């Protein structure tokens, strides 16, 4: 337990160790730790940014969805409207067509009636002539009484 020159040796050794540590040990370790700190901070910031982006995207997608739904219902309403319009149009056209058919049918019927009447009239006049001939007992000159017959036919 004597104080001797070991003291000086220890002091020199101490100084050398500290110098070495200060030169070759501490700075690279500290640099790496700082780099990692920065990387972690960056990562956290990126994560935060990502989270914000995600929230924004979710908001945006919800908005898009809502818009799309609106548009869809709009389109459906429009389609409904158009469908009823088409139905209306078809109805109108059908009405016109049916009216046309009815009119044509009526005209035809009238024609038929007219033709039947004519026929009937002719036949009635023939019957009348035949009847008159029989009654009179002689032949009537068709030509001579044509005017009379036509008058009759017109009356019928």
């Amino acid at each position, binding site marked *: 337990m004597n104080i001797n020159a070991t003291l000086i040796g220890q002091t020199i050794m101490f100084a050398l*160790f500290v110098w070495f540590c200060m030169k070759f040990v501490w700075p690279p370790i500290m640099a790496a730790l700082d780099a990692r700190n920065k990387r972690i901070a960056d990562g956290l910031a990126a994560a935060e940014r990502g989270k914000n982006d995600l929230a924004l995207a979710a908001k945006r997608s919800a908005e898009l969805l809502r818009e799309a739904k609106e548009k869809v219902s709009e389109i459906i309403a429009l389609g409904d409207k158009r469908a009823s319009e088409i139905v209306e149009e078809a109805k109108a056209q059908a009405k016109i067509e049916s009216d046309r058919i009815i009119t044509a049918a009526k005209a035809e019927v009238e024609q038929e009636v007219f033709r039947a009447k004519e026929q009937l009239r002719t036949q009635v006049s023939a019957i009348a002539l035949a009847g008159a001939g029989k009654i009179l007992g002689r032949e009537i000159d068709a030509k001579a009484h044509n005017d009379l017959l036509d008058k009759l036919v017109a009356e019928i």
Partner: protein
Amino acid sequence: MSTEGLTTSAYIKHHLQNLTCSIQEGHFHCAHTAEEAKAMGFWAFNVDTLLVSLLLGLVFLFLFNRVAKHISADVPSGMQNFVEWVVEFIDSSVRGSFTGRSALVAPLALSIFAWIFLMNLMDLVPIDYISLITQPMGIGHFKLVPTTDPNATIGMAIGVFLLVLFYSIKVKGLGGFVGELTLQPFGKFGLPVNLFLEGVNLIAKPVSLALRLFGNMYAGEMIFILIALMGASWVSFSFASTLLFSSQIILSLGWAIFHILIVTLQAFIFMTLTIVYLDMAHQEHH
């Protein structure tokens, strides 16, 4: 272990004796007794202290330097993890106690902590084991724990003291430093008193650093020696001897476990006080 004819006091003395060597008349010569070591005077070296502390310092620097060379900012593993843990611990201690900015203080604190920790840790090597190696080599004394040698602790304290002086003068200027020593706390008319008080204050720093560490480790070592003596007093398979022997095992285990705390604590205290002293040296008024 005690051999025939070795007394208790001789056993204790043996364990407290450094391997002191000097060059006498051109020959490298090592002291065999405490008296001989004393007679060598100042220009002798405690070879064991120098050797062990040098080895431990190199172990520390080698390990840390190896990690520092291959360090990356990626996910750390194994040794790098451990080194980073130590470095961050030191860094936060320095940040907590040292208010200025200095490239020296943190690595200084790391060196102090690691070196003292390793030197103190040698205390946990069973005290008689080292002589199993050194005795056959013809080395009579070998103290494995450098911090139980006041030369080692005072040597470090001198290093710290020189740094305190250097930074005091660098930060405050020579005039400021001298002024701090002489002009407070009682003004210029109380100059001798001031010088005395501040001088004591200044000298107390290295002295407290050195003696606290030395005292703690020396006392710890002494207790290990005393515990080892219990088993060394073995005579026969008597009740007393068996009791003493088993007590040694239990006590040395207990003391070793407690010493793990002291080893770390003393290294930490030396480091923290160094940081605080350097912090004071950097400040204008303290």
